[in-house]
């Protein structure tokens, strides 16, 4: 049984339908990547899974339990955390407080703790008392990832963690992914950077206009397949 599934997932913003029956599955210990152009519905998919948007209860399951109708604050304790698009650090909180807020109101056991996060991203230990938003973009992204890890999630959603960062910084951020995988978390990585997604993922889903247009292991499709799935036209 898959750890996380979406089945016929639909999502709406008012009258506008953003997802048209999306089926994805994440197996235990696996990393999947969701690629697609702007407006393909990747972030909507992440917002639906994390509970920011609510859906039909049975449309999303986590460990077999329907979670589609739950809100984000109800889903987090079940073991699903998200690194939101644009990092979204809390400006009123210091770096350390931003990390600590990831365990709000709960005692969590597991690999990830403040020390483990500082071990993963040592620069954050030096900056622990700075306001979160005073850091560089890459460092802010590290805080956002650390904040999500603090709850020791079974499933970690990473929405566009490379967006707006310099290639050398992206390399640093992605260097953390194997360590996160080794801690036992399963990952869903949303990426516009196809090369990065192919490197990190066990399986890839490509989305276009609110639908999954391609699915498989990174080595199973050609450049042309991706081009067609990504843009709707062949190269």
């Amino acid at each position, binding site marked *: 049984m898959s750890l996380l599934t979406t089945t016929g997932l639909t999502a709406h913003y008012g009258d506008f339908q953003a997802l048209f029956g999306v089926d994805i599955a994440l197996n235990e210990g696996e990393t999947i990547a969701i690629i697609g152009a702007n407006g393909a519905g990747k972030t909507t998919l992440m917002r639906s899974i994390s509970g*920011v948007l609510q859906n039909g209860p049975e449309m999303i399951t986590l460990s077999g339990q329907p979670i589609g109708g739950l809100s*984000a604050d109800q889903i987090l304790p079940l073991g699903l955390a998200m690194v939101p698009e644009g990092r979204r650090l*809390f*400006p009123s909180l210091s770096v350390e407080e931003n990390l*600590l807020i990831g365990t*709000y109101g709960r005692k969590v056991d597991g690999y990830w703790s403040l020390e483990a996060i500082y071990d993963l991203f040592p620069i954050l230990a030096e900056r622990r008392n700075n306001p979160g938003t005073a850091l560089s973009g890459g460092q802010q992204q590290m805080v956002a990832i650390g904040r999500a890890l603090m709850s020791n999630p079974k499933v970690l959603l990473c929405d566009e963690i490379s967006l707006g960062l310099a290639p050398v910084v992206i390399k640093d951020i992605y260097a953390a992914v194997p360590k996160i995988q080794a801690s036992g978390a399963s990952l869903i990585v949303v990426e516009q950077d196809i090369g990065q997604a192919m490197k990190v993922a066990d399986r890839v889903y490509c989305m276009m206009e609110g639908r999954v247009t391609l699915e498989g292991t990174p080595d199973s499709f050609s450049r042309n397949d991706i081009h067609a799935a990504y843009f709707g036209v062949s190269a």
Partner: protein
Amino acid sequence: MIWLDTLVQGILLGGLYALFAAGLSLVFGIMRLVNLAHGDLIVMAAYLILLLVTLLGLSPFVAAAIAAPLMYLIGWGLQKHLLNRTLGTDILPPLLVTFGLSIALQNALLEGFSADSQRLPTGEISTASVDLGVMTVGVLPLLTFGSAVAVIVGLNQLFYRTELGRAFRATSDDPTTASLMGIRPSDIFAKATAIAMLVVTLAALYLGMRSNFDPNIGPARLIYAFQAVIIGGLGSLWGTLAGGIIIGLAQTIGAAINPEWQILAGHVAFLIVLLLRPRGLFPRAFD
């Protein structure tokens, strides 16, 4: 020497206004909700204390200690079941609902307690004073000011030293992302209003011991509180104390010049600060 006395009296009066304002400031800082019924809730708490004093023969301080948890629960329920429903992108619903609440509270108090002016029995404390050499200062105003400082220090500790305080600040910054951290914003808002009602109870205690009150004085207390919050900068607790002191000073100085100018002087001070510093003296760095 009369001027020194006036200044000290003004600062101490500012403590009372800061107590009126601290709860308002707390709630606005966390959820951007302007509670127009804040003054009426203070008056309601004063009647609750009066009721306990009269029925059980308690001292006002003991009665306030009993009223505080009751007000906490009232605040929690009010936010959870009424005010949370009004929060959203539109700023009008919370204003309309709290305005309605204000009118409903005034009329309910009028119905229950009549329009007669009331006062909490204070015994000797209302006339007791401390001799500071150059002047004498009333114990009650000193106690009021001390309580105001204690409340501001306490709320700051809560905000910056506790997990709940972190959640308050995070929710204030970004409720959606806070919910991704397992925080339920509606619960945080309910706790914030409940804590504000503890401060309201304290404000009611000193209001009732220092002056007469009747069911209709709430809106005027709201104005002073609101002015103190705006002068200090929205969401800044120390700013709220400073705002209260400025209003208190302006009123006392105005009254020293001409007794008719007391209230007017407070409003003029408010307008001058608004003109010079439209965002208040200690505005938040980001919003």
